[in-house]
């Protein structure tokens, strides 16, 4: 665990699309990472943001970052041998219970990133994996070729440029009766998570989903990422929650809280 903001050298950068890059960092000390955990990532003169880990091999970590705001755009300007400041990993990741032999992995957009690390781990445990990946378009589809190494992959795109045209939750629903799995793992936009919670609940399937809220401190103190009505913290109690918790979180799909703590409704 890296506890305070520490500059780490970028040893490789892979550009996935005009919006998404993966930065590989060489750590000096070994850390332990559970798929689904995140790092707090910072560069001077920008904000510190939570980024999930998409690659890990003991001394190298991969952070997949979409350029969606001022800070992430600044990070995208960095080159190999530049430095990213990181601390972490933080939070509770995906759990693989004993006896699980077949899983589905469902990812939307850059939510696919932490699921790659999960797929790698599950595959090493000889677990059968079926993946469902959704993106805006073929260009933005993350890690398609890598997921193919682990088993069948079903793809959806909003514009129909690859696979099924529509959202990935609808794609999952088409197969829900014909494919059986012990557990579904999910990460992606909140609308996707809401649909999967409903789907899992209605079909009596088990689910673990990674949630996103405003994370400021990352260590469970400031309370900016607390979820109603249980007061659970995304950064410390999550970001991955099991179905029995997810069904109780009535703010999911309904609202989130802004920098001041004010409720903001999802459109």
């Amino acid at each position: 665990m890296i506890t305070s903001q520490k500059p780490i050298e970028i040893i490789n950068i892979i550009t996935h699309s005009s919006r998404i890059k993966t930065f590989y960092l060489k750590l000096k000390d070994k850390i332990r990472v559970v798929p689904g955990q995140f790092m707090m990532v910072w560069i001077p003169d920008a904000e510190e943001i939570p980024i999930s880990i998409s690659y890990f091999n003991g001394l190298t970590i991969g952070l997949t970052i979409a350029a969606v705001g001022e800070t992430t755009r600044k990070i995208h300007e960095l080159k190999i041998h530049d430095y990213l400041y990181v601390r972490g990993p933080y939070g509770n990741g995906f759990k693989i219970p004993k006896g699980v032999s077949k899983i589905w992995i469902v990812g939307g957009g850059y939510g696919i990133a932490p699921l790659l690390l999960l797929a790698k781990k599950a595959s090493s445990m000889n677990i059968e994996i079926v993946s469902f990946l959704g993106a805006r378009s073929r260009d933005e589809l993350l890690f398609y070729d890598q997921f193919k190494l682990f088993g069948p992959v079903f793809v959806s795109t909003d514009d129909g440029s690859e696979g099924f045209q529509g959202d990935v939750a609808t794609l999952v629903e088409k197969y829900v009766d014909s494919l059986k799995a012990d557990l579904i793992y999910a990460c992606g936009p909140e609308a996707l998570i809401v649909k999967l919670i409903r789907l899992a609940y209605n079909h009596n399937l088990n689910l673990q989903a990674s949630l996103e809220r405003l994370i400021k401190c990352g260590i469970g103190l400031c309370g900016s990422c607390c979820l109603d009505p249980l007061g659970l913290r995304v950064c410390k109690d999550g970001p991955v929650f099991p179905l029995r918790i997810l069904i109780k979180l009535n703010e999911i799909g309904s609202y989130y809280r802004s920098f001041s703590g004010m409720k903001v409704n999802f459109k």
Partner: protein
Amino acid sequence: MSINVSLGSLTLRNPTILASGVLGTTASSLIRVYRSGAGAVVSKSISIKPNEGYKTPVIVDLGYGYINSMGLPNPGLDEMIAELKIVRDKKVKLFGSIFASDIDEFKYLANKLTDYVDALELNLSCPTKVGVGLEIGKIPWMVEEITREVCKASKVPIIVKLPPLVTLINDLALAAEDGGASAVTLTNTAKAMKIDIFSKKPVLQGVYGGLSGKALKPLSLACVFEAYEVLSIPIIGCGGIYSWEDALEYILAGAKAIQIGSAIATEGLSIFKKICSGIKKYLRENNINRIDDLVGLAHRR
């Protein structure tokens, strides 16, 4: 064995209190902390208007403490009242923390909040926000005047939270007492900073932050010890309490209750129960009936 404590007219089921600024914005979070064993919970500091606080990074983990510069984020008075109502409906012992830039604002907040809390804690000591914190809390006559006016505007007891300025603490604590405070919280965080030697810039976006956690404990403890010698009103100790032993040190220095914040990051929410059971065990083993019999014992020479 009962470990309830009284702070003037307030009675708490145990002496552990959630410190302001930590997990205190939403009702569900405050309720969760109370249910995990706190004797009372203090809300995040409330202002009239919503405040976004500083941009991240807002915290540096030093290993021996934290420096935070949240910048008093809160959704403002109206939104916070909605949350506090939910908390009170669950029979939670609740203190509302408030901050403002002048006496009229303080009075307004106190007046609006008085029906929704068991006590108000005046944050006169935030080290990161210019014009609303430390600038007020280091000047005794201002502390006294604000306390007096807020007491008039409020039906509930007023607690004044002061900065860890050991050399000034007696004057400040007496000013709060003279102004009519029912208790003082000693102390808030200490003004501090961290510089990144690679970029040669401060790490925290607010430049300064407040030092909390283990590094703060000896400072706050000395403030409690000093102030106990001159005060008649009860003291709530706060700063780097991680264990029942830490809590006991504060009690022996003169605190009747203690607040917990930073330790939650590493010890989790079970810390409230752990500290209570540690204190109970200590009382039992030493044949002491109540916490009050321990308060200030370290002053015997």
